[in-house]
């Protein structure tokens, strides 16, 4: 589903590489934790998958397509197959829960009948049924993140990318979010999650890829967070 082949990325105006010779293959349906200290290259990894940047060297294949060869006008099409969740939720404050989720479908031109049917379904999946008409600032952090996950998942993407989704949440709430991501993963969606949360990684016992100074230093199929913590 996602394959990095000798990928290096150096940002413009910087001498140090953010990623260096990374080779990773993530299969369809996998659940992968991306761990490492700040500046180790996790965010660069995720941004490259989203094709927000190009690689300096090497190739990235996402769903069989070489991102470097993708014409820029095809990028939006490619991103529709990837859902993204962030630490800061990124909800639109002036729209209700349902409108926030519907927005993701509206802007890619889905018909209204499809939106009316899909949005309640996905809100129920993330456990927010009954809160469709709330505004984001009326919700708890965990609930807001559920809205963000619903928005990321509503178009049934093949890949879900989560950049520290529990970073702003307390441990109890985080467990709920992880259960939700696990459930989404069980529908066949590949999940790649960057995190600093030791206990979550240790509990879930999923594949762990550890980055350090832009290198992959560990890739274990049923890993824990690591030794330095």
């Amino acid at each position: 589903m996602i394959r990095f082949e000798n990928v290096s990325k150096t940002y413009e105006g910087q001498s140090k590489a953010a990623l260096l010779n990374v080779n990773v293959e993530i299969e369809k349906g996998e659940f992968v934790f991306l761990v490492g200290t700040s500046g180790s290259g996790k965010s660069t990894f995720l941004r490259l998958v989203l094709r927000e940047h190009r690689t300096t060297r090497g190739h990235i294949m996402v769903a069989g397509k070489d991102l470097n060869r993708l014409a820029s006008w095809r990028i939006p099409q490619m991103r529709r197959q990837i859902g993204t969740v962030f630490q800061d939720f990124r909800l639109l404050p002036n729209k209700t829960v349902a409108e926030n989720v519907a927005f993701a479908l509206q802007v890619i031109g889905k018909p209204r009948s499809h939106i009316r049917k899909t949005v309640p379904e996905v809100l129920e999946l993330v456990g927010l049924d009954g809160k469709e008409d709330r505004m984001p600032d009326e919700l708890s952090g965990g609930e807001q993140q559920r809205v963000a996950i619903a928005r990321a998942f509503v178009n049934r993407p093949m890949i879900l990318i989560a950049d520290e989704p529990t970073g702003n949440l307390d441990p109890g709430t985080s467990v709920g979010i992880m259960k939700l991501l696990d459930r989404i993963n069980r529908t066949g969606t590949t999940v790649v999650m960057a995190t600093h949360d030791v206990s979550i990684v240790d509990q879930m016992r999923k594949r762990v890829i550890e980055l350090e100074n832009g290198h992959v230093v560990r890739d274990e199929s049923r890993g824990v967070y690591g030794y330095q913590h």
Partner: protein
Amino acid sequence: MRLNYILSDLGIGLKRNMSMTIAVVVTIWVSLSLFGSALLAREQVDLMKGNWYDKIQISVFLCTKDSGGRGCAGTEVTQEQKNRIQQVIQTNPDTAPDGVFSESKSEAFESFKKLYKDSPIVSTVTQDQMQESFRVKLKDPQRYQNLVSAVSGLPGVDTVQDLRQYLDPLFKALNGLQVGALIAAGLLLVAALMQISNTIRLAAYARRREIGIMRLVGASNFYIQLPFLLEAVLAALVGAVFACGTLWVGVYFVVMQRAQETFRVWQWVGATETFRATLIMVVVGLILAVIPTFLTTRKYLKV
């Protein structure tokens, strides 16, 4: 594509940027009005040129014994000199076929009497004081210098008169005005361009959350640009409509009501020319809105 969503977005965008939008509308209004006036001024100059140049002929006045021209030696022009002059005029490539008429002293006296029939000056002038002349029509009224210089040095030629000498300064002044108006319009249009791109930058900043999410979930570039494009087009259209109205009002009150009444002999620009000018104005206004919008949205939306 969800039209109602786009329209509600457009409304929000316009409200949020109200003052900037008004500034854009006013700038486009004023600049397009000036631009349209310059277009009309040119049409007017062309009309007047056509009017006058058609009637223009070159008059070659021949020597009398009193005239002090270069080719005169204080004596009356001789028949030999007249033949020579006529030959030079007729063989000149710029002379229209059958375009040479000679005016004798008696004919000149007749038309002089007609022209000044109410003036006491007629009684003091005798036929002998009149000048013989050749009147020449040209193939192309724009090309007169060749003939004028060929004839003016000849013996027996007193002066060569060309109406253009008197009209050219007028046309030059009109041309100058027109260039001035075009430059002013151009400067204002550049200002409008910059205002539009500034407005879009502000609007893009105000909507950066939405835009970020749109990009993330894979909205097409065109879909992201569309609200900005509509905003700019709408502002430009409103400005252009005001400008067209201004031009029509100007033409109606200045040309149709006053100039046309006062100077009936001249041809004046009318509805046809004004309509043509307003069409050009609307097109220019739209281009002005669309091009900077595409450029700025590319830059600020990173689409």
